[in-house]
């Protein structure tokens, strides 16, 4: 009957984590002109009950955390996912030595939330 509060250390909470993609690491530096890399980030962490407002949960996620707190085995927590993303642009040479500028949607995680 009483809600079970699992102890959650702050670092476990759902939030964006830093992840820098270095194009040299994957051997792309000879065809990518710019950028040399970029901060992609990723989401990771818990979505505990009660879902605080900073976790940007939908009503459904709030419901799911409640059910999870009552039946942890039967219903998982909501997922910690990107909820705001940004584009990046890449300048590169193609196989014909043409210079290409390409814009990609949703390549940088700016904000995470529980869904």
């Amino acid at each position, binding site marked *: 009957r009483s809600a079970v509060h699992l102890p959650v250390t702050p670092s476990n909470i759902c939030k964006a984590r830093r992840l820098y993609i270095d194009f040299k690491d994957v051997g792309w530096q000879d065809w990518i002109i710019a950028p040399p890399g970029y901060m992609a980030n990723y989401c990771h962490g818990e979505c505990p009950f009660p879902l605080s407002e900073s976790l940007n949960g939908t009503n459904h996620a709030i419901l799911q955390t409640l059910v999870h707190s009552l039946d942890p085995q039967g219903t998982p927590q909501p997922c910690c996912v990107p909820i705001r993303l940004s584009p990046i*642009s890449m300048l590169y040479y*193609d196989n*014909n*030595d043409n*210079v*290409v500028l*390409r814009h*990609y*949607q949703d390549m940088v995680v700016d904000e995470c939330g529980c869904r």
Partner: protein
Amino acid sequence: SDAEDRNTRERLFLGSLGLSERPQPAGSRHTRRPVPSELWRMFRRSESIQARDSDPCTVSEYGVRGNIIRYVQDQGRLVSGWSSSCQACLVKQLFFNVSVLQPVELLSLAQLEIRLHWKPLRPAGLLRGPRAVSMSLSKVIRATLRGADPRASRRLLLSQSLRPQLEPAAVAMDLTPLAESWRKPGHNYGLVVELSPPPGADPEELTPFLPGNAFPLEEAWTLPLMEASLVVVSLNPHQCRSRQR
């Protein structure tokens, strides 16, 4: 197998970026053509904070839908001497390989840009005042048979006179429908640009301003150096999904 596994992962990831394979441009980083300053500007602008909220599937600089901007370089050759009637004319074939666009890509804009670099005018030239050259741009609609007049397979697109200028001058022309027709295999015969000296100019006076041709000091008049590129804007619909609300 590790290497294969890595290659497979890379190919799958590049595929999701709309690239059929890892580009392998020829030459080294230092010998490749410089990045056009306009593309640098667009890239820097896209990195600004404001741009983060703009639509990456619209190219605001050209006002068209698109997420890929290519500066397709000219692969044509000088063909002076085609026109027997004008030995002093500078005649250049322009050829842009638009097969670099993937079939899935929607062509939004193909803009021809011809930059003319005039050699600084000599005093004699100044005395007589800069005289215009005439430039004609034609599309080639079929291969020219041996012995046939090459002009028979051309259709005039643009004809204008150009005056020498201190700064490089650019002629721009929207060739989107023509570039779309070039995407069909076997339909790309390119363009021909012809620069004709001012009427009455003494051919002896004229020496084309060509690479490797140092500035002939005794020369009072020179045809400009020409650089051509095709700015191609296209949209990959797989990468420009409408946002799920």
